[in-house]
């Protein structure tokens, strides 16, 4: 029996229901960010004044700046370490303790954030590392690195190793062969890994809460503390900006992966 493909009333309803469940809250938030009224629940006409107000909210702007710095540094370090871990897992063959190593690399994927955060806090206190910018950044490296490793590893599995051998054969040292051939070829996956690490770092509230010091409040922490004093249209506005940024980055990551896929298929 041939399955009928396309949209039937049932599939349309299911799709609409699912999408509504996921996105109605977000859409409401975006709409209310343009609310002229000071009261969150009363509609008072369209306005962009909360967005202009954001620029004058120094505390929020500072937090946004901290978040961007943390995310950039953390994503970059996580990408380097994650790529190295993926290389070790794919290239080194069946070395002693490989399974254990793979398990250790991927454990943070399933580790509850509260535990990761608490453990890091204990460590930083134990070694007397003053909490501040670097503690948040390092904490973010530990939990985003595994995502980079997963993405890069899947790319390396389909990488034609003879490309690297050809580079060696033509006189490139292993170091040069990696940077002039292997890295450019797997770059889309590495870039996608970086973007994913960046958004994960930007989103994180729990781990940052444990590891950030005074004066290094990240944006999610700032928003959270402001909400505890009551939801203002300003919070809606900053959240909308946040949604836009994250969406853009995730879109870029998926485009990078798609572009790589096309490059492979066109061969």
């Amino acid at each position, binding site marked *: 029996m041939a399955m009928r493909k396309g949209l039937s009333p049932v599939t349309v309803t299911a799709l609409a229901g699912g999408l509504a469940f996921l996105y109605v809250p977000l859409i409401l938030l975006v709409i209310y960010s343009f609310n002229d009224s000071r009261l969150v629940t009363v509609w008072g006409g369209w306005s962009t004044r909360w967005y202009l107000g954001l620029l004058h909210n120094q505390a929020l702007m500072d937090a946004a700046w901290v978040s961007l710095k943390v995310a950039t540094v953390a994503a970059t370090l996580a990408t380097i370490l994650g790529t190295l871990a993926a290389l070790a897992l794919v290239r080194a063959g069946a070395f002693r303790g490989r399974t254990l190593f793979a398990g250790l690399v991927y454990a943070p994927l399933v580790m509850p954030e509260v535990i990761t955060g608490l453990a890091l806090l204990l460590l930083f206190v134990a070694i007397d590392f003053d909490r501040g910018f670097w503690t948040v950044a390092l904490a973010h490296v530990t939990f985003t690195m595994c995502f980079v490793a997963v993405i890069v590893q899947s790319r390396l599995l389909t990488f*034609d190793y*003879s*490309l690297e*051998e*050809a*580079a*060696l*054969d*033509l*006189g*490139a*040292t*292993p170091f*040069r*062969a990696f940077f*002039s*051939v292997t890295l*450019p*070829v797997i770059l889309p996956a590495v870039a996608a890994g970086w973007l994913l690490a960046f958004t994960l770092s930007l989103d994180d509230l729990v781990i940052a809460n444990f590891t950030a010091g005074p004066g290094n409040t990240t944006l999610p922490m700032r928003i959270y503390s402001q909400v505890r004093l009551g939801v203002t249209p300003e919070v809606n506005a900053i959240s909308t900006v946040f949604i836009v940024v994250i969406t853009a980055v995730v879109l870029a990551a998926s485009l990078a992966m798609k572009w790589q896929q096309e*490059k492979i298929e*066109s*061969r």
Partner: protein
Amino acid sequence: MDSQPAKPQKPQSVRRKFEPWADPAAQPLIRFQSVVKRYGDVVAIDDVSLDIYEREFFALLGPSGCGKTTLMRMLAGFEEASEGRITLAGSDLSGVPPYRRPVNMMFQSYALFPHMTVADNIAFGLKQERMPKSEIAARVDEMLKLVNLRGFEKRKPHQLSGGQRQRVALARSLAKRPKVLLLDEPMAALDKKLREQTQFELMDLQQRIGTTFIIVTHDQEEAMTVADRIAVMDHGKLVQVATPTEIYEQPNSRYVAEFVGDINIIEAVVERVTPGDIALKSNALEAELRLTQRSDVKTGDPAAVALRPEKIRIGKEPLSEVHANCAQGVVYDIAYLGDLSIYHVHLENGFVLKATKTNISRQIEPPIGWDDKVYLSWTPDAGVLLKS
């Protein structure tokens, strides 16, 4: 190949007499000396000693898993020998990494760098040598001309056809003017017509530039077409190293006889030996087998006679005055290939002999058909004695 027609050149025979392996004073360029390669308990290369000479086009032939690729990769530096020595122009290659060997390789997958243009691919090895830019440009142009790909320098590999990619890979591996070029199944990805044409072009190119070429292939026709000498390999051992003619006409073993070309193998026992005349008796044939070959076999030794199908005369009438090297039977299968036909002939005692016949005249009705009674005969120098 497949884009521009080759420029008309003065006809010139490609192969002159070239046999440095027969000259005891000649110094080999490459020497494998008792080379063994083991992977754990598996012996991939089993005590191989082999000399390859300058300007030689050498083929490593064998089925997959026979060790031919391992042998080539040892020369390129991707594998180290477990025992024995490999020398190139007198210097020991052990411990020399691939990027310091004057040997280049053309990969089966071509391994073109997908993010670089054709010109950058060809220039890659030259850049590693830190050759001046102007020299690189000149060399790249020379290589493009050599493989007939001028005008394609700005293309990326995915914008080329299979044949063009093959030529870029060839140009890239020749750009550094290596002492030895290794070719790993270079034509496996090409279709039959293009492959035949490319074989001749490769031969021609090798003659012009004079580089030693070593090709790895499982295709015996390809090896016979291009190579000066062929090494037939089986289970990590060299079975026979000889010219294509010797490999085909004087196989030294059943393995070589059966691997290269089509052949009839007749089991027999030696009856009489006189210099230049060996008589054998086989259960398969009524008549005696006579060979002019010289051999050290003795009366009573078991042996086999290998007989190529094209050396057997097939006809509806018996040749008169033939008492040895003949048989009669019934045709039960015919493969018509156009240029020749292959006949499978059932002998009276059930043995099957294959005989081929060139289709000299145009005939729609075959002169010999199914179920025809036929007479087979061959000369005493047609068969090869194989000791079991």
